[in-house]
């Protein structure tokens, strides 16, 4: 590497890290306030005493253990549903031609635009009709077919080299076989990306779960978290931060584990 390259590299590294610091600032702040008494929430003093009291207070304000379990069940269910439903649909959109394809695709994209909140009243009525109110299934069901996922996977599938599909077909793969053995493994980084995003999103989803569930046995973490936000008394940053860290920690850990999956070496050397 030349000197010019190296210094360019150094500038980029510094720039990337500055941006990173900026981006992590809220989390850093949350960590700061969560581990310090409320008095230090807005003052940064290296000698400030550490405490776990905020976590204790937050933990006790709601049955977080149970909520954690519920949330895990909900996001797992949604993710499994989305992977299945979206993969199938995206495959059809990416590799088949059939009459009405573009109209159907436009209809799918519509869902990206229709905000689910607007449909809450209607969807509640549907769930009530199905007798699903206050079940985990009711929380998950409306999100299983995700236009976001279909669109994303379609875009990805369309970049998979066609010859690989052809090779698989010649080897005797059925339609689903090709999907499962070629497209899905080749799109792995995108599946990981989608999985992380979907889990994060539903981990933090609040309004619909609040509306459609009534009992501790079905409610997700965010409902517990909401106890601390928007109170009449103003904001207690210490407790909110502690609760936030508590609820987000599993996600952060999951991200650290899965981020490696973005780096897949196998497509790196040219396969012609």
């Amino acid at each position, binding site marked *: 590497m030349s000197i010019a390259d190296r210094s360019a590299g150094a500038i980029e590294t510094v720039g990337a890290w500055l941006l990173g610091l900026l981006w992590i600032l809220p989390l850093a702040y949350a960590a700061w306030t969560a581990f310090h008494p409320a008095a230090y929430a807005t003052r940064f003093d290296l000698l400030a005493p550490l405490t776990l009291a905020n976590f204790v207070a937050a933990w006790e304000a709601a049955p977080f253990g149970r909520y954690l379990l519920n949330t895990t069940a909900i996001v797992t269910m949604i993710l499994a549903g989305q992977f299945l439903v979206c993969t199938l649909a995206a495959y059809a959109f990416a590799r088949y031609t059939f009459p009405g394809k573009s109209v159907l695709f436009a209809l799918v994209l519509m869902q990206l635009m229709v905000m689910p909140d607007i449909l809450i009243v209607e969807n509640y009525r549907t769930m009530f009709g199905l007798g699903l109110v206050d079940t985990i299934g009711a929380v998950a069901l409306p999100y299983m077919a995700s236009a976001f996922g279909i669109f994303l996977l379609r875009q990805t599938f369309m970049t998979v080299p066609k010859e690989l599909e*052809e090779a698989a077909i010649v080897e005797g*793969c059925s339609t689903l076989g090709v999907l499962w053995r070629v497209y899905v493994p080749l799109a792995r980084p995108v599946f990981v990306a989608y999985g992380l995003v979907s889990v994060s999103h539903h981990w933090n989803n609040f309004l619909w779960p609040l509306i459609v569930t009534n009992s501790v046995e079905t409610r997700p973490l965010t409902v517990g978290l909401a106890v601390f936000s928007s109170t009449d008394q103003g904001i207690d940053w210490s407790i909110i931060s502690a609760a936030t860290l508590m609820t987000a920690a599993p996600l952060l850990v999951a991200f650290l584990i899965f981020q490696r999956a973005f780096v897949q070496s196998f497509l790196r050397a040219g396969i012609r």
Partner: protein
Amino acid sequence: MAEIVVDNLTKVWSGSPAVDGISFTCASGEFTVLLGPSGCGKSTTLRLIAGLEQPSAGAIAIGGRDVTRRSPAERGIAMVFQSYALFPHLSVAENILFGLKVRRVPRAERDERLKRAAQTLGLTQLLDRKPAALSGGQRQRVALGRAIVADAAVCLMDEPLSNLDAQLRQEMRAEIRSLQRRLGMTMIYVTHDQVEAMTMSDRVVLMREGRIEQQGTPAELYDCPASGFAARFLGTPPMNLLPAAIGAGLLPGVPAAAGGSIGVRPERLRVGAPGRGLAASIEAIEYLGADTLLTLDAAGAKLIARTDGHARHRIGEVVGVSCAAGDLHFFDAGSGRRVEANGNGCNAPERGEGA
């Protein structure tokens, strides 16, 4: 068992035909080579037979069944792709076993076949690698392995040996040929290597710009090229094509009047003392180890003659070039098609059957 009949097959890519109404038959258990210059439609033909492209016109039958509208999986074929088409996420072993797993071949048999194929192909050490960590030739061998283990009734191979060295290629040639015989596979094999075409095939289909220029046994093609194109395409160095006026000088008694061109293969030319045959001067000498190629100039026409490895000639030397009567080929001036002049009929010699 699995005869392939291609009938009037046509494939048009945005206006220009890549394959233009070709018909040929590959009998069951026969080894057919598709030969032709780059871009003439060999791969396209193969892909049409495999069902990977929809023909614009024409039909394909395999084993007596019209499969024109059938999916590739239903055609019972194995295929080596020119671009290898290895699955980058699978190891060598998984790549080779892909089809067997899909078809639920029992594990023990799978392992057995893998072991054999890996041995044949010299891949035993590499079974756990991903394709990205292989050399070009190794990738090609993996692609070959995938077709070999399939034991399909029909096998299509698209330049499967192009990235292998001479020695390995020779071994593979023998291996593929014997495998094909042993299993009675019907093979369609694309190659640009005429030695492969000559040594392996039962039948050669020579293509040119989407059409069939000539088809027949290798000897037929070599000894009786149907056109100037066919004559020059087979053989290295290619056949010399001379204007009839000049070429007539090679052999007494050849009429120069007819026009058109006269062809003679480099290895058939005898280079001797000046005075006998056509007078020519040596322009270049190329030493190939086993042979030496002489580039000759005869009245402005260029000829190449192949002589012994250590033939002692010098550049600039004037020599006489001649040949035997049966060695001359006559081609029409306009169409380039063969003319059977002077009762110079074509009789391909018997072909010695290889080991």
